[in-house]
């Protein structure tokens, strides 16, 4: 009885804590959303009000007519989708090799790759830019996509996951006559579905929010991504808050939709299926 009470008490407390933390995370977004429905004169009036006194969607109309959102969304989607697909494929194959093959130099290779995570983007930006220039990829979407495909984080995620897959599973597949390609595509990749989805969501989010690299590589405004367009609204000495708030909300919408759709695919899969206990 006592333990039941304790269980219930801790459940209630934990749930309450969860709601408080969730609210703390949501509050700034909520404020952004409510502020975007306020007219400019209400944004800074004292005392501050959470709810708009005279709600208006004029900001959205103004934002939609001022910014070429469709164009920016298409560009950003092209970059984010292609990069994400290639990142998942490259990271999975690389992670699989690092986890399941025993060659001496593979570990050296892994350490080199992990070392790249220790360098901030800004440090490697100049040499990367030089390479992009030499390859003739300046001012093209490929110039955004190609340098972003390899991420040590993704490779490491797959490697760690594949390490947990018992070698017996691979051995039994080999005994059954499966070659390495088949083992990877038909056995390992389906098993790693949660990692695929998690990395895909992360990668998509990284590319969607990329700012500094697209800024440097792109010079044609027709190839601008959403983040560059948004930053362009911040002037030298003053900011058109009405435009910035509504544009920020519009730029969030595709990201939220994608997250809602794909979140349900994140699930755990037993990697031990097919093995005798």
């Amino acid at each position, binding site marked *: 009885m006592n333990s039941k009470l304790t269980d219930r008490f801790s459940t209630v407390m934990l749930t309450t804590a969860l709601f408080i933390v969730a609210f703390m995370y949501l509050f700034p977004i909520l404020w952004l959303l409510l502020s975007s429905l306020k007219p400019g004169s209400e944004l800074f*009036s004292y005392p501050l009000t959470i709810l708009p006194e005279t709600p208006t969607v004029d900001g959205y109309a103004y934002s939609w007519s001022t910014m070429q959102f469709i164009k920016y969304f298409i560009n950003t989607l092209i970059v984010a989708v292609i990069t994400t697909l290639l990142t998942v494929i490259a990271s999975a194959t690389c992670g699989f090799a690092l986890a399941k093959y025993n060659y001496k130099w593979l570990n050296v290779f892994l350490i080199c790759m992990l070392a790249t995570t220790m360098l901030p983007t800004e440090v490697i930006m100049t040499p990367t830019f030089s390479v992009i*220039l030499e390859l003739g990829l300046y001012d093209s979407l490929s110039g955004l996509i190609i340098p972003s495909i390899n991420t040590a984080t993704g490779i490491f995620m797959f490697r760690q996951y594949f390490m947990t897959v018992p070698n017996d599973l691979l051995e039994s597949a080999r005994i059954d006559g499966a070659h390495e390609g088949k083992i990877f595509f038909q056995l390992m990749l389906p098993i790693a579905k949660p990692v695929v989805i998690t990395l895909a969501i992360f990668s998509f989010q990284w590319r969607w929010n990329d700012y500094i690299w697209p*800024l440097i590589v792109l010079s044609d405004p027709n190839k601008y991504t959403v983040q560059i367009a948004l930053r*362009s609204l*911040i002037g030298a*000495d*003053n900011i058109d808050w009405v435009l910035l708030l509504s544009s920020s909300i519009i730029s969030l919408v595709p990201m939220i939709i994608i997250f809602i759709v794909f979140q349900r695919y994140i699930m755990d899969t037993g990697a031990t299926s097919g093995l005798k206990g």
Partner: protein
Amino acid sequence: MKKTFLLLFVLLSTILVACSGNNSESNGESGSESNGEKMQFYVSGDTVEGSALTKMSEKYTEETGVEIEVVDVPYDDMVTKITNMMRAEEPPALARVTGFNPAWNGKLMDLTEVAEQNNVMVDMGITVEDKLVAPPLDLTAVGMFINKSLFEEAGVSYPESEEEVWTWEEFLNSISTVVEETDAQYGMVMDNSEHRLNAFLYQHGSKGFYPDGDEYTTNEETEDALQRFIDMNDNTIMPKAVWTAGEDASSMFKSGRVAAYMSGSWQITDFASNIEDFEWEAVYMPYEDVRATNLGGNYLVGFEGSGQEEQAREFIDWLYQKENYEELATYGGYLPVTEDAEVEYELAQEAYQLYQDEIAASDPIASQQRNELVVKQLISQRSLGSSLADEMITTLNDEQSLDEAIENVKVEMTEAYID
């Protein structure tokens, strides 16, 4: 499964190749060959400023058939972006900028003739080796705004003509009274900006920081003025958080709880559209020894090597013509930079007039100082950020004395511009 992946891979590779619209082939041969390429004009903040340059570019296209693409670039990254474009040997035809990079030196078009033909105030532009490489395009000036409603509620008067201009002593007494008599939280706010602080220094007789022999120095008045500035940051006259923690001075003033705001002419359009809870007014700035503002604004530059130099020159010439320039200044709410411009502003005409008076009454240091620093950005090997502002923030945080701050600024400027 494997086939699907293979197909996917081939498809992605194809898309990647398709995305690689390589422009390096057309280098240097665009525009002038009339291959239908638009002329790119890099600006920042045009959207915020009523798309003034976009409207004028469209008008130019209607009149001449030459297409101009106005590209809005984030303000903070304009110089970085253009410098990288120059590395890629693909500079834009034109740009509107406030800052420069040494990499641009020698690659900017000489616009002396165009500026002189159109009565542009060339002394406000950037001249390197007798070539005007960056004429001014629009002008901003530091100025003072007050919350008129609070002043009236407290029964405190303020100067309404140039004969009545207040001293800093009188001004500080006035805002202290407003704070006492009303529910105003602070007497004034000043943007966290070296540009605004310099105007305050000039008004106290400071000559800023200048080279003397082989090092940078300053006059005594600078120290006295900076001491006064530190004393004002007492969380009564001025909130310390604006300078030490980056709180937004503009939104504090818009909240209606601050009596005065030292900012500049670029706020007029915003205030006219977005303040409804109280009455505001642009007023004459206080002074101690000399009347001074600090000029700012944008320069117009054309790049050598864009392949469109001639069209760029023709467009600049067209833009500075009296009628066109007046139209541009009206759309954007700019203070004009041509001698004969008469601008009818859509909002707060009297506020703009007051700024014109401020500029006319200002000590020449207001423009000379800024241009000197910008020229240094172009011809020095190093460019210095906001050295004085950074040192003052450290001082306001009680991490160093004022003397140390001044010494540091001298050393930093000497290292950047002389050593």
